[in-house]
């Protein structure tokens, strides 16, 4: 089921901030292709959960439309939209067993959709098998681990065969190891069922690793959409550049002077036809090459060995966050000695942004 969001806007007229109504989501346009997994990504308070709540119908949009396939569901009540939702805290009914929890949505069905007891049991068993909790059916939620509870919540949302599956921060209550495992599990279940899925998270790594496409949001507006790698390699503004990637991108206060990009006194790049002005220069950690004759000079602080790679922590006066973190091949270890380190920069790993608007400057490299 394709999901289309058209000019979706949510304003809270009862909440006022700085003399204006709070706009949680503004003019959200996006089309989620059928059967894809979409990651809604952004810092907390950026409106991603509000968007999710509007898709499922728990919140009414102030304006705009939501379409499932060709049906306009904007005015349809949540229970008639055919959405399954997994809540951040799972919302499993604590007094019911796993089986009763999974059966709960089916027992609500009325009229022609009503199922017999055997059919319900069968559907519940299937859903439980899909998420591999069929051996825990008679336990209560508090007898399960966080990861198992998560699976039960997914089974409960899938059992009524929804057209769209929504996951609200599904991994944030799990520990690091379980998080990795569960996100692969979510990916597997999504692939197996082929159900269109929207997944909200503030963790960019999580979103990048399992989504077919990501939507980066900030303060209620969509910043950029696209395949994770595309967004990572081609951010439209400084916010997106900073938000994606671990370790984060290194941002420098720089300026263009006579066609040269200057970080401090170091000319790191030559560009064509750009007038002189101050800019932000952002370099991905993997964009540095250790090079004795390289143009960028930093004070060497520490070297963290990670096996295949090493992480070089250095300092530069012009860096926004004084430490500069670069990831280079471990073979470079012997080159690192003394007080300073010199880098040259991979041109496709450096992005320039306007100083005031923080929009991307699409420069042409010279030479």
């Amino acid at each position, binding site marked *: 089921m394709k999901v289309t969001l058209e000019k979706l806007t949510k304003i809270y007229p009862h909440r006022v901030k700085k003399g204006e109504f709070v706009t949680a989501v503004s003019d959200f346009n996006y089309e989620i292709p059928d059967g894809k997994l979409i990651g809604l990504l952004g810092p907390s308070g950026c409106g991603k959960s509000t968007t999710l709540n509007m898709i499922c119908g728990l919140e009414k949009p102030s304006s705009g439309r939501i379409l499932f396939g060709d049906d306009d569901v904007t005015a349809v009540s949540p*229970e008639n939209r055919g959405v399954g939702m997994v*809540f951040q*805290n799972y919302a499993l009914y604590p007094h019911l067993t796993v089986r009763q929890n999974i059966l709960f949505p089916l027992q609500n069905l009325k009229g022609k959709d009503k199922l017999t007891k055997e059919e319900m049991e069968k559907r519940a068993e299937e859903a439980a098998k899909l998420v591999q909790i069929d051996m825990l059916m008679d336990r209560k939620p508090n007898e399960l681990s966080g990861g198992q509870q998560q699976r039960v919540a997914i089974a409960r949302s899938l059992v009524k065969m929804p057209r769209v599956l929504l996951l609200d921060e599904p991994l944030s209550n799990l520990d690091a190891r379980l998080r990795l495992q569960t996100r692969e599990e979510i990916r597997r279940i999504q692939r197996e069922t082929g159900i269109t899925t929207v997944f909200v998270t503030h963790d960019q790594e999580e979103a990048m690793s399992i989504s077919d496409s990501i939507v980066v949001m900030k303060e209620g507006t969509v910043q950029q959409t696209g395949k994770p790698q595309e967004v990572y390699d081609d951010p439209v503004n400084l916010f997106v550049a900073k938000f994606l990637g671990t370790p984060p991108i290194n941002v420098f206060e720089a300026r263009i002077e006579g066609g040269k990009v200057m970080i401090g006194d170091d000319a790191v790049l030559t560009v064509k036809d750009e007038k002189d002005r101050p800019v932000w220069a952002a370099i991905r950690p993997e964009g540095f090459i250790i090079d004795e004759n390289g143009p960028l000079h930093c004070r060497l602080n520490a070297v963290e060995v990670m096996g295949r790679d090493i992480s070089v922590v250095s300092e530069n006066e012009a860096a926004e966050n004084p430490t500069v973190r670069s990831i280079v091949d471990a073979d470079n270890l012997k080159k690192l000695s003394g007080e300073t380190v010199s880098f040259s920069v991979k041109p496709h790993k450096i992005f320039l942004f306007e100083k005031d608007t923080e929009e991307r400057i699409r420069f042409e490299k010279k030479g």
Partner: protein
Amino acid sequence: MKNNVKAWLYLLPAVLFLGVFMVYPLIDVLIYSFEEGYNSASQSFFGVGLYNYDYVLHDPYFLQAVKNTFLLVIITVPISTGLALLISLGLSSIKKLKRLFQTVYFLPYVTNTLAVGLVFMILFKKTAYSDGLINLLIGLVGCNPIDFIDGPYAAKMFVLCFYTIWIVLPFKILILTSALASVDQTYYNAAKLDGTSKFRTFARITLPMISPMIFYLIITGFIGAFKAYSDAVALFGTNLNAAGMNTIVGYVYDMLYGNGGGYPSFASAAALILFAVVLTITCVNLLVSGKATGK
């Protein structure tokens, strides 16, 4: 061993206090209840035996008190708890004037029992000059006035139950509204997305989640109603036996200090019978609630 001494030292104030003011009187009551023909003036008695219990259990006043108390318990506990649940549900679903209504419903809790009794007297009492406000209303629908305070037993029982329910309601509403507020909203969101009907949401989600609080209210409600006394006094005056509206605690009090007072042995026996009844019912309650909540 040293730790033990220290622990007991810490406990000493509480142990002393409880020992003198609770354990000793309890034992004393037990002893009194077996001392036959105890005379409080001379502090002497004839013998030891079950005569006091025998007397109390055959005393028509006591039997009337037991009947009154049981009726009061059986009528008021379910009604007040159910009513409190309804009102709390209403309170938690309205948005406007919520605080105002919460305050209004809580007022009886901070009002003096005797003052409330007086108001009820004014509402219900039939005097030579006036039939009282309630009778006025009854008259409007074309029925004969009833004397609620000095009239037939059913009418008096009705007033007592009405009064008791009114008095205990605020506390129950307070507990239940906070219990309802503590149910996580996401359960309701999840239920809503699954198309759960209002009734099913209440029966399968809300009720189980607040059931520990409901059982708490039922248990304390039983205990409270069994210990009723001041309510009856506020409505019917101190001569409850004459009014036929005595309660078990009222009977105990009358045996000690009332018109026919000065019988601590009978009072003790009655008090112990009440204790046994309350203990049994509380145990049954705990058993049932334990089964129901699965703990």
